[in-house]
């Protein structure tokens, strides 16, 4: 039986613990790595301890690794150094549920370099809090995933939108792209129609954006719908892709960045996250990172 390694990112959210526990009950892991943010180490301590107890109960070896997320270069170096020094194994399940997107991408990239078979797992919440994040930091390209920018080409920004149109607006204002496309999650889950589609209506008009529908909860995490528009513009524009919507869109963006190294991924960090970000743990999604 193949050895399976779980990688997760600690959070105070209920679904971090509930989801990881559920996964441990259903999947036979041999080892687990729990990354956690230095900034939120107090807030995540309780859940970390509980998860460790669960891992012990299941005889799963575990490793803890603190990440200083305030500095992009130290974040990358910490994660890279961890993967350089530890034998992770060839079969890895990355729990992206509460993992910042930039870290998702770093882990995928480093595991891919180690030729691991990577799966993702994602646990939906039962509901979200009344606000999610605030105190936005400047958008940035993740290290090693900033693409190959051509001086002669203009910029085309593709944003998988979420519930926070202000962040989408901020990214548009920052890059001032020649063209913008909003990839909008379809469906009525979590008040999606009003929080997503309607909220972005003014911004779509203002920046004259293209819009496409996307289903990040599908098997391909929305990759196919994004592919179409990427293939249309990749030869004539510098493409920047941002994931502000469902977390699985980060998987789709990573796949696209691997297929098209010219693509730059974009991350919009927030300095403050709601302690009541989400409640409960709903359904889970699991699939290969690179099919």
């Amino acid at each position: 039986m193949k050895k399976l390694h779980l990688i997760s990112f600690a959070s105070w959210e209920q679904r971090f613990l509930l989801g990881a526990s559920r996964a441990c009950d259903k999947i036979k892991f041999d080892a687990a790595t729990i990354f956690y943010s230095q900034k939120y180490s107090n807030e995540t301590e309780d859940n970390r301890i509980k998860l460790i107890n669960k891992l012990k109960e299941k005889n799963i070896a575990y490793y803890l690794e603190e990440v200083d997320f305030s500095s992009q270069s130290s974040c990358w170096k910490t994660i890279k150094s961890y993967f350089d020094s530890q034998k992770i194994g060839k079969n890895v399940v990355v729990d992206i549920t509460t993992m910042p997107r930039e870290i998702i991408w770093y882990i995928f990239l480093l595991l891919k370099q180690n030729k691991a078979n990577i799966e993702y797992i994602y646990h939906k919440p039962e509901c979200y809090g009344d606000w999610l994040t605030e105190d936005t930091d400047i958008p940035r390209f993740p290290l090693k995933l900033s693409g190959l920018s051509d001086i002669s080409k203009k910029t085309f920004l593709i944003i998988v939108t979420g519930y926070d149109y202000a962040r989408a607006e901020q990214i548009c204002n920052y890059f001032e792209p020649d063209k913008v496309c909003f990839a909008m999650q379809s469906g009525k889950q979590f008040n999606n129609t009003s929080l997503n589609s309607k909220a972005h209506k003014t911004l779509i008009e203002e920046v004259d954006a293209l819009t496409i529908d996307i289903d990040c909860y599908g098997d391909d995490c929305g990759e196919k719908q994004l592919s179409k528009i990427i293939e249309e513009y990749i030869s004539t524009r510098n493409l920047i892709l941002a994931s502000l919507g469902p977390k699985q869109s980060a998987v789709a963006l990573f796949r696209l960045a691997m297929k098209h190294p010219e693509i730059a991924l974009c991350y919009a960090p927030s300095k403050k996250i709601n302690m009541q970000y989400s409640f409960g743990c709903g359904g889970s999604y699991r699939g290969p990172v690179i099919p």
Partner: protein
Amino acid sequence: MSNTRNPFFFQSASDLQADEVIQYYAEGGNITKALSSRENCYLIGERGAGKSMALRYHSFLVQNLLPRDERCVDTVGIYIPCNHPLMLKNEASLFDKANEIAIIEHFFTLSMAYHICSSLRDCCKLHNEKIQKKLLKNLSYSLALNKNIPFYGDIFSSIMNFSIHESAAMQKELNKINSERPKITYTFFTLILPLLDIARRTDSLEKAHFSMLFDDAHLLSMDRQKVLNSYVSYRDHSQFSFKAAIASCEDYTFMTTEGSTLVAGHDFTMLDMEEDFQNSKSDFGRFIRTIISKRFKEFNISASPDEFFPISDALNKGIEKARESARIEAIKKYGEIDSKKINDYVYKYGRARYFQNRPAKASLPQYSGIDTIAHVSTGVVRNALHPCWKMYEKELTRLRGTIPQTIPPNIQASILKEESDALWGSIRAGFGNKIEGCTKEDSKKIENFFDELKTLFRNRLLSQCSEPRILAFIVSEKESEAYEEVKRLLLLCRKAQLLYERFGPGKDDGRRETFYATNRLLWIAVGLDPEGQHGRLSIKATDILAAAIRKTPFLSASENEGQLNLLDLKDWK
């Protein structure tokens, strides 16, 4: 909004074609003087002030399309956008500082080389192919390349391709998980200076002065800003100079990579894009009319801006009646002979009487007219074009696609109210996810501050105080503990474009002082006069903080009289 059926579309200037820049650019202030000089210059202006448009208009590519006698610069302007993804990559930060700076400069240099060549390629002819190849070979030698830069038809195209190829090669290396530090990087001195020498061999550029026009330089990382500043610090400006557009001085460091600091007046001059329109000599209303008239020409609209945006009869008559009423008051006070005092009185109180005499339950004035639009924009071009765009769209819909010849005052008023409400809405919603460094608590403080400011301005307008229509303020008590926090909050307000920082003559010993002009669009929804007055209120830092944190009201208008830092008309330049 890039809808080309609407004459008020506003697009990022960097997206316009060169001929469109010529079509839509309107000269204002001392911009040409600054951009055609051989001195380094920083252009300062918030988003929408017209910085990019000014840089692009004064670039060689655009100027070269103009007839020779209409060209306004004799420098060769090379436009370089700093918000290009190549300028925003961070892989260099994984190396030690020296290598990081070398990589940053490498990308800067390649970007400059590309833009120099793309600007000159179609306009300037070099000698025969043999000479061009020789020059390319010399350049390759000076860059210590293993092989010569490939020749692609002409030397400028060759260097453009070289720049693209080299930047891609460096990016590929840096994107590797275990990238190595670069062995060779290019600098301003190894690539750009030889390139400028090559450019001077063309017939028309023998004695050319090259002006590098960096747009949105505030978006660069601090290290990149320092690299740019190091170029600015270079003493010899005879052959090249640097102009950089930044949003504000707070967003930009003036330090160099060597650790020194650039000095205004010595290393560079500064041009505040908005300042020029804030005094009585220059007139933003005239500038906006010029911009709109140019656009109307392209869209075959024959009406003038005043005809297109007529002021409401009721508003016009109401204000005239109020002025007349103020004139009568003044005559009673000063007698008929002292016309200067009468005119000053009418200026100070005429319009105010209109707002003061309106019944308490009256609906909002029908804000309309091109002057109102100009005032509401608070000196930022985009702030004028945006509501005009919406007005045009609304009227176009109402007329079912027939081109409007005028925008009725009621449409103007409803759009201005809508926009004002939206701006207050954004204050209520908070800026935590729009502005870097703005927490939820900060958003609340900003909301409180503007609520109290609204009350203060409204009370002043309805009172008998001197200069009742003031909409700007300075912060006093600069030595207080509260001042640093107030400065931080006001910076966030500026980033949200609720306030604009301006510089003007101070009351004491005429030194220039910083003051804050509020975004006048805010005052439409609360029924104030967006025209404002030239004076500015002095508000203590402690009072601002108290208002922000505890919603403590500012002093009433009459109590505030002693605090006024007014400019008499005669002091106003």
